């Protein structure tokens, strides 16, 4: 029993915080910012505890394994969660002061789902964790349905519905595929596909169909082409501080799941899924980068940019090497801080400027040089420019992919990175060179400002000194793929 508690200590703690927040709100409703701050601080405590609690081990039958891989992801999700909470505090206290606790509780439940997901080695646990992660997100997506600047249509309900419908459909797709895979292989453990035929024969046709359905289901979750339609609409409609969280943590969880399934379980059957994965990765890079070009709403633009970024991450998974997986982790970790930062700055600017279109955030750097500078740093990181974290991320991915022989996709990716730079620079152009209709400094709440500073610290810090994260990622990846 004590071993169980140790194994799931951090997840229990997160759920306990969620319960605490809910109870506290029920018995002593507050309208200030205390709930948010307490959530953030407690989560910070959990993150700190992750460095002292050694919960490595496995649950019976190996359904859940806790190793360096899980620890890496737990810390990443906790960090994203803390920043997500910090970024929402001011907005929630201002817009929906009476309904704060449920927001945090939902976010925490989703967080617990993600943390469990990284260690799941059984299909049933995996699907349950995935749903635990996804359900609260549907609700949160529509949380601010009456909210938003007067100049913009209220799209939150539409965003929530879109996410819900595609999310539910993709869950159905995954489950259908799993029914085939589990039925054909006779085990719910995530492991090599047992063909049952003579040695060297591939999986049975029905199993292949199942595997591709599962892949498509996860494709929806991470927003890869051709399963990406919900991304820009949802990003545009949902509350921006939440989009910041939505755009990173669930994506990271989805990629982790893909890695567990494809590299951990199905590595021997890569001839089935690798072509599909390569097509998905290439298409995501192309579609994401080119569809971002004509966007005038910064959130839609970032939505398409996110699709492109997922393409790069999938490229790293397609290397099927430990190094490649490690660089996926590095990529995702830097992406978490960068994208959170970009959305937070955008949120701060949009709250004051009255909208998220590029025209509305024009002149930001003149009004608030620090915010403008931070936005520029985040954009450069997304574009992959040296001395910010995103550069190393892209570079490492390309290097590993090159080593794995995916030369065509690397050349494509490098070329598309230039296209990416164009639209990231159009955002910078509007904040630096265009004149907005306002000139007063942008006021940023303390919590939001703190979140931006933390993101900035990591993006610049990892850009100057990527070594620690590279080592941590290499260590973590060894839990899934052995060898080089």
């Amino acid at each position, binding site marked *: 029993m004590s071993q169980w508690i140790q194994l799931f200590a951090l997840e229990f703690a997160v759920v306990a915080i969620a319960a605490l927040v809910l109870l506290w709100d029920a018995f002593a409703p507050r309208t200030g910012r205390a709930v948010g701050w307490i959530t953030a601080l407690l989560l910070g405590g959990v993150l700190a505890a992750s460095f002292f609690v050694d919960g490595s081990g496995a649950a019976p039958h190996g359904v859940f394994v806790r190793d360096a891989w899980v620890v890496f992801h737990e810390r990443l999700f906790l960090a994203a969660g803390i920043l997500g909470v910090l970024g929402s505090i001011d907005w929630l206290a201002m817009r929906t002061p009476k309904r704060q606790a449920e927001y945090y509780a939902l976010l925490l439940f989703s967080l617990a789902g993600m943390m469990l997901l990284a260690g799941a080695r059984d299909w049933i646990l995996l699907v349950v964790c995935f749903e635990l992660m996804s359900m609260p997100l549907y609700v949160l997506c529509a949380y601010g349905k009456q909210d938003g600047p007067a100049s913009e249509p209220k799209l939150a309900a539409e965003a929530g519905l879109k996410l819900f419908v595609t999310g539910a459909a993709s869950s159905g797709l995954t489950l259908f595929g799993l029914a085939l895979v589990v039925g054909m292989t006779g085990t719910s453990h995530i492991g090599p596909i047992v063909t049952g035929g003579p040695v060297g024969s591939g999986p049975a046709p029905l199993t292949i169909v199942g595997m591709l359905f599962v892949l498509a289901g996860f494709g929806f979750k991470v927003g890869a082409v051709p399963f990406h339609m919900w991304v820009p609409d949802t990003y545009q409609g949902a509350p921006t501080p939440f989009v910041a969280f939505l755009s990173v943590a669930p994506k990271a969880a989805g990629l982790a799941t893909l890695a567990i399934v494809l590299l951990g379980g199905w590595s021997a059957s890569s001839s089935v899924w690798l072509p599909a994965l390569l097509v998905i990765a290439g298409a995501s890079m192309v579609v994401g980068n080119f569809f971002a070009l004509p966007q005038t709403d910064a959130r839609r633009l970032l939505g398409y940019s996110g699709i492109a970024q997922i393409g790069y991450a999938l490229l790293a998974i397609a290397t099927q090497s430990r190094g490649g997986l490690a660089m996926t982790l590095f990529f995702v970790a830097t992406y978490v801080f960068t994208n959170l930062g970009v959305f937070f700055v955008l949120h701060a600017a949009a709250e004051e400027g009255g909208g998220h279109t590029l025209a509305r955030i024009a002149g930001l750097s*003149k009004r608030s*040089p620090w915010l403008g500078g931070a936005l520029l740093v985040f954009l*450069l990181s997304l574009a992959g*420019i*040296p*001395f910010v974290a995103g550069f*190393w991320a892209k*570079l*490492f991915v*390309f*290097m590993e992919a*090159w*080593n794995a022989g995916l030369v065509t996709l*690397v*050349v494509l990716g*490098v*070329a598309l*990175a*230039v296209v990416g*730079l*164009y639209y990231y*620079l159009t955002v*910078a*152009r509007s904040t*630096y*060179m265009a004149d907005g209709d306002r000139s007063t400094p942008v006021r940023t709440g303390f919590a939001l400002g703190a979140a931006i500073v933390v993101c900035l610290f990591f993006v610049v810090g990892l850009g100057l000194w*990527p*070594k620690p994260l*590279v*080592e941590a990622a*290499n260590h973590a990846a060894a839990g899934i793929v052995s060898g080089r």
Partner: protein
Amino acid sequence: MSHLLAWIVAAPAIAAAVLLVLPASARLPIRVVSLIGAVVACAGSVLVALTYDRVAGGMQMPDDWALVPSLGIHLKLAVDGWGVALLLLTGVIIVTGVLASWGVEKRGKEFFLLLLVLVSGVFGVFVSQDLFVFFLFYEIAVLPMYLLIGIWGASHDVPKRGPFGFAWKRFAVGGKEYAAMKLTLMLLVGSAAILVAMFLLWKEAGGTSFDLAHLEQTKFSLATQNWAFPLLWLGFGTLAGVFPFHTWSPDGHASAPTAVSMLHAGVLMKLGAFGVMRVGMVLCPDAAANWAWLVGGVAVINVLYGALCAASQTDLKYIIAYSSVSHMGIVMLGAATLTTTGWNGAVYQMFAHGIMTGLFFALVGLVYERAHTRAIAKMGGFGHVMPAVACFFTLACLSSLGLPGTAGFVAEFLVFLGAAEGAHSWWAVPAVIGAVVTAVYVLRACKTIFWGPPPTGEFAHLTDARSTEWAAPIVLGAALILFGFWPRFLLDFIDVASHTFLARIAPFS
């Protein structure tokens, strides 16, 4: 002094970091801190030149820090003879550049900050001995240009012309933002090509190290070289203004503010040529010999085409910008000869053209600030009201056309000599014709603007240079003459490096 090279690279960056915490209203402290950063780097460069052992040659003053050990990326610094010459150039240009932009009032803090970051990258490129770090610094040197031109640049009208005239309005041709975006994207496409070539070489060298010394010892297969060299040539060559990838240069230089034009045309374009020679030709010697006909042929086009374009311009800044395209052609021509003389001339031309074009842009900036026009047709007789500017401009013109006694002469003479010695001696003929066309357009511009009857009307009360504005003309003008009469000081450095590098290529050509 230990870690001298690291200090040279760090000094502008540290100054930039100090600027970050200064309030934007602190006008003078911002400028003084920038100047200190620039002067320290410049003094460090002079110190390097004085302590470099030019008899021994080779890589000196090494520094090494592991950056990403698992991939073999090291922050490895050392300087060779070429590096010494280019460090000096960068040091001189940044000091005069800061002084020339003393009067930038619009968002001054950010301007100086970006300028210093940029120059830090330039210094870094010239002393990096790790291909990867080389590339990092290269990017740092290229990117701030987007904001520097986009925010502080000047827009101007470009008449609709050519088959793409219909798109002029859509892309706001002539606008500073157009120029900034065009420059950034074209150079970034070049960077992408460099990155691919880097991977190619790194992979074949074992995938363990980006150390240039390690890569130099690797014998790359001919197939790899034949792919990598053109990529490097196009990638770096875009920044060096290689035809037909030079089109960012006139727009960018014409739109950029004075100090940025000085730095960009004066130093940054040299990064490109330096990259082609130091990385492309030295690492891929067989391919360099194979492709020499193309590199040299295009360089000849550069010289002639750039000169003819310059001759047909009516905007003063465009004239100087196209003259840079033409002069960078001479650098690339010298590189393509694959002879010691030619290479010495190429590097000397980098230095000479850097100083000269820096002087040109500083003076053009002075004239533009006073006359508020760059159309030479409107100007005339300015020599009467700004005699010193006229005098220095004439000096720059004379160096541009290669008059003996100026630094330009030494460089062009060596390149022409190298071309005549080399495998394709006919290159010398069109190159010399290009020099003649240069004489036509610079002298005509000089005559139209500065000589003739005294100006009347709005131009009658123009003034000569003032206070900090003197720095650039005097320092750069003096350098032009000094290195025209005493080329040995630089050539000793350059020659020892050229010999070492060329020894790798000679067996193949």
